[in-house]
């Protein structure tokens, strides 16, 4: 309980009028006689407190929410759209053991890995399962000349100029960025592909380097007895891997 003496001159100088609101009403019988003017009612003050606290909390919540929900780690990871043809990498690349390069022919020379043309599908499926209803869109495309509208899974923003060839040919495997595609019946966006994620590797490529010949091998491990980091450091030294860390490496 705060007891206040109006006659004490020090009170007036120490407290602003609003501080009086913190004095419980019943303990301040002489309030009506107070010479200080009342600006806010008690109810307004209560609202103010709620707004200040509530506002602070909601800002924190928004920040936490943005921090959690906005980055690609949340928005992109796990993205697995339904494709017009239920093509299974797990079957083709996993069990049948097709090389990635059979379809993604651009990956060693171009910036884009290239989604295969309908012709690539028809190379085999003219003979294998030629009447499967699941392959209907492929056959339609083959006959009509219109492309199969594959839904894009992995995508970097337009101002990022990513190049597949330099990664694959210098010893970054498919699995490093795309995950274990050979075990995915439906392709899932596994890594975030955010800028921080890119930079992690550009700053410490040794954690992910492998011999370029093994780029398409999903099960490659550093040779027995060596850690990935030690082996990667050797490769980095030998191939003189210096991934760009400046903006111009990716943004033009």
């Amino acid at each position, binding site marked *: 309980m705060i007891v206040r003496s109006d006659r004490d001159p020090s009170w007036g100088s120490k407290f602003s009028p609003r501080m009086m609101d913190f004095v419980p009403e019943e303990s301040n019988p002489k309030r009506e006689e107070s010479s200080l003017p009342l600006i806010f009612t008690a109810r307004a003050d209560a609202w103010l407190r709620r707004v200040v606290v509530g506002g602070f909390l909601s800002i924190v919540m928004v920040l936490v929410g943005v921090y959690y929900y906005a980055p690609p780690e949340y928005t992109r990871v796990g993205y697995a759209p339904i494709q017009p043809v239920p093509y299974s990498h797990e079957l083709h690349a996993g069990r049948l053991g097709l090389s990635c390069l059979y379809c993604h022919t651009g990956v060693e020379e*171009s910036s884009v890995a290239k989604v295969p043309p309908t*012709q690539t599908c028809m190379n085999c499926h003219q003979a294998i399962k030629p009447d499967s209803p699941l392959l209907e869109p492929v056959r339609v495309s083959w006959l009509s000349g219109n*492309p199969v509208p594959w839904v894009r899974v992995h*995508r970097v923003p337009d101002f990022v100029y990513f190049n597949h060839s330099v990664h694959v040919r*210098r010893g970054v495997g498919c699995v490093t960025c795309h995950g274990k595609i050979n075990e995915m019946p439906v392709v899932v966006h596994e890594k975030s592909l955010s800028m921080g994620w890119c930079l992690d590797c550009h700053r410490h490529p040794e954690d992910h380097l492998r011999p370029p010949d093994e780029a398409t091998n999903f099960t490659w491990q550093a040779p027995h007895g060596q850690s990935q980091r030690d082996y990667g450091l050797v490769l980095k030294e*030998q191939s003189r891997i210096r991934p760009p860390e400046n903006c111009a490496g990716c943004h*033009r």
Partner: protein
Amino acid sequence: MNQNPLRILGQETPVPRTPLVGKAYWRSLDELADTADFRDWVEQRFPRSMRELLDGGVDRRRFLQLMAASLGLAGLGGCRRSESEILPYTKPPEEVVPGLPNYYATAMPRSGSAVAVLVESHEGRPTKVEGNPKHPESAGATDGFAQASILDLYDPDRSIPVLKGGEASTWQAYDAFAADHFAPIRRRKGQGLYFLSEDVASPSLDRLREQLLKIMPQARWHVHEAIDRANARAGAVMAFGKPLVARARLDRAAVVVALDCDFLGLEEDGGRHLLEFARARRRVAPASAMNRLYVVESRFSLTGGMADHRMRLAASQIQDYTVALARALLAGSTLSEPLHQALEKSAIEAAGRSGREPIPGPWIDEVVADLKARRGQALILAGRRQPPLVHALVHAMNELLSVGIPTRQSLATVPSLVHAMGEMVGKFGRTVEFQAESTIAGAGTLAELAQAIDKGQVETLVILGGNPAYDAPADLEFAGLMKRVKTTIRLGLHADETSSESSWHLPAAHYLESWGDARTGDGTVVPIQPLIEPLFGGRTALELISRLAGFETTTPFEIVRQTFRRTSGVKDAEFEAAWRKFLHNGLLAGSARHVVKPALNWDAIATAVAAPRPAPVRLSAEHLELILDRDAKLDDGRYANNGWLQELPEPVSKLTWDNAALFSPTTAKALGVANGDVVRLELAGRSLEIVAFVLPGQADYSVSVSLGYGRTKAGRIGRGVGFNAYALRTIANPDIAVGLKVFKTGKTYPLACTQNHFTMEGRDLVREVTLADLLASPEPEAEPADKMITHPVLTGEQQWGMVIDLNTCTGCSACVVACQSENNIPIVGKDQVARGREMHWIRLDRYFAGDLLADASLIHQPVACMQCENAPCEVVCPVNATVHSDEGLNVQVYSRCIGTRYCLNNCPYKVRRFNFFDFNERPLDQLYLGPLAEKGVAEPLKMQKNPDVTVRIRGVMEKCTYCIQRIERGKIGARVAAGTSGRTAVPDGTIVPACAQACPARAIVFGDQKDPDSEVSKLKTNPRDYSLLGELNTGPRTTYLSRVRNPNPRMPDLGGAQG
């Protein structure tokens, strides 16, 4: 710049502001006079106060409200990226790897010749034109016209439907009409059928024409070019008896005299001349190897800017000068007595006339002495618009100089002398070579066609390209004549002035959509192969002709193959291989025309000299001379709807989006006109209202106007831009006319001139030395003493740098257009240019030096981002949007930039460009409507964009990146090739920025300056190498080589090069 600089000139000749260091250069008369307007302009660019901001009256409260609202709305839309599709090919075309560009060799047809080019194509859409490095004429370089031609392909204003009497129709309708219409004409052997084509150098078209005239012998073929070479042809006929084409070999010439001849710029073969001239110009040591250039001309041309000595002389008086020069050169010669006598007589007559300005003595005596001293390596060139006599005399003088001049004294020893000279010629080769003419043989002229129409002989007129209704001489009134022809069929890229007078307008295919062939300047046969299907369904002239003549083969592809089978002479078994090689290399090796050695007809020249000529009238303010020029940007008007060319500053006047009547300061003072005044030009009963512009270096009482402007039907870009000077053109005096009168109208007209934009205020920016000084003291530039600012160690394996050689840069501006094409740089329109908001990443600063009222000299300096090591822009960016790369590049990150423009303010070179509006997305006439304006790029224009470069949005700063996309492509290529070997350095010469690739003078060199063996490193050790504003210790990566002038010490003016 409204204030008349001449008002100040009227009081006294202004003295240039004392520069901080070095010689005084000035970019404009305003700067020289330091007018109040110029100070205002500078003050705005370098604000000392916040006046501009405060006056802007931005309501802060309102601004914050709007910003908050837009932020809130933006948040709602950005939650998840939309689903997008990948659409692969069904049957992939061979050769196309998505993501990798392909290059195809083709050729861009020009008036009477073609330019061999290599075109970059991204997944089937052409995006960039380069020179064909396999072709000796271009050697990989191009000019601005070729660079800009890619924009013409995607011009949304190209004509799309077939037009019948102005109404939309179809090709089917035309084909049905043509089948009915031409069958009876064929039966009548072509009677009443007339063709009018441009001067097209195409073997296939020649072949079709021959075939056509065989089955329709009564048909007639006429050729019209607004800028033709009739004078040169007539001069050759006069001198040799046949129309030969003279081809100057500038790399063999040690002394060059150009008589009203812009051979490095707008004359024919300018690109090749520049390549060769630059080669000779670079031989700075030993002293005898560098060439010397004398120029006599009426208007400042780029060639005049390169001159060691330049004399202003009205174009109508150059004939007299040529006669005087020939007389002095032949003095004492016995080669041709009649010519000698005729020249003597003519010169005496001329001296007796009062109508001529006296020509300074040294301009005859010393020039002749210099020419004679270097005989065998001397070269005289006459300009396209000079009368035939000048050309003939120049042929005679070149002949004399190539073999030596037998004199009476030396006659006894002639055999040995001729032998000695012959050896010399053998050593260097002749400075002029002659080839058979390439133009369409036996074709009539436009004037003859007009006569035929007048007589009612023309029933059907087929116009293939060109725009005669616009660019025919005014006294023909060709548009009116066209109405009298019953059927006019016109093939053209745009529905223009001629189309609206035609019964049928047929859309033509652009050269990048066509199969065809052409001959380049030396006669080499080059293919024209399509990079894309006709966007708007156009057809080529080859197809049109073969259809209307009823030939069996009507597909251009087959027509060209048949022609190739003939011209190449290969057997059937080897045909496919030869054809593929032809397409791959872009030329048929060994198909150049043979060089002939004609015999000069001295007597004919003597007769021509002796023939009476009208005495030239003394020019004065009441009796002026009018020069109608080929335009450096629009040519004869054919590129009027090309925004890149319209916005390109004219190399000398620096005007954009307009032409103007150019006056010398003296003439302007006499007439009382100033920049921006509208004047009325009156000539022989015709008149034209046009804006006036004062340009130093113009001959007194000679007025120059560029052709090609004032189009009434050109498209959204070109319509109504500038003033149509064809209104003053007549058949008799197409290029030079005397008797012009100029009246002030009291009106003014705004001009968008970039001469003062991004100015760097009177410092030691361009440097020149004379060859003698350079050889005496080759002192390299001292490092700046004050090294207060340093930068972190740059660890990159390669360190990029650039050297620009001012000694060979003429200022032709091909680099500006090349950069625009490569880097997706938008155009901003005249209004924004006038506000100094043009977006060109590279600008060509033009400086005059010397005496304003007399003979100023001219020098150009390309300025793009210097990639400073201690970059002043980087330290002021609050969001780290401009940062340094480890390879020494000053990197601009668009996605970070918030548009504070602090970097622009802090840049001493003024090379950063800010997107004040969404120039890429909004129509230029709706910029101020903000979000209410239409949004989006016109459909075909999207396809031109380089996919490797971000298209910037409003509010973002941008600048030269040294073509970072090309650097990265080179680095990635080297690393992919290296694999695990570790040899990752990019070999020298692999990475070439767009500007350097386009440069016809090879003045821009780019490379790794850390590698001591690279070309750029070697150039940087040259004593002429200097840094722009190097005293600021910015450590620019781009450095310049100062210009070397090679003046004749016995000439009085020394070319303005004395420091």
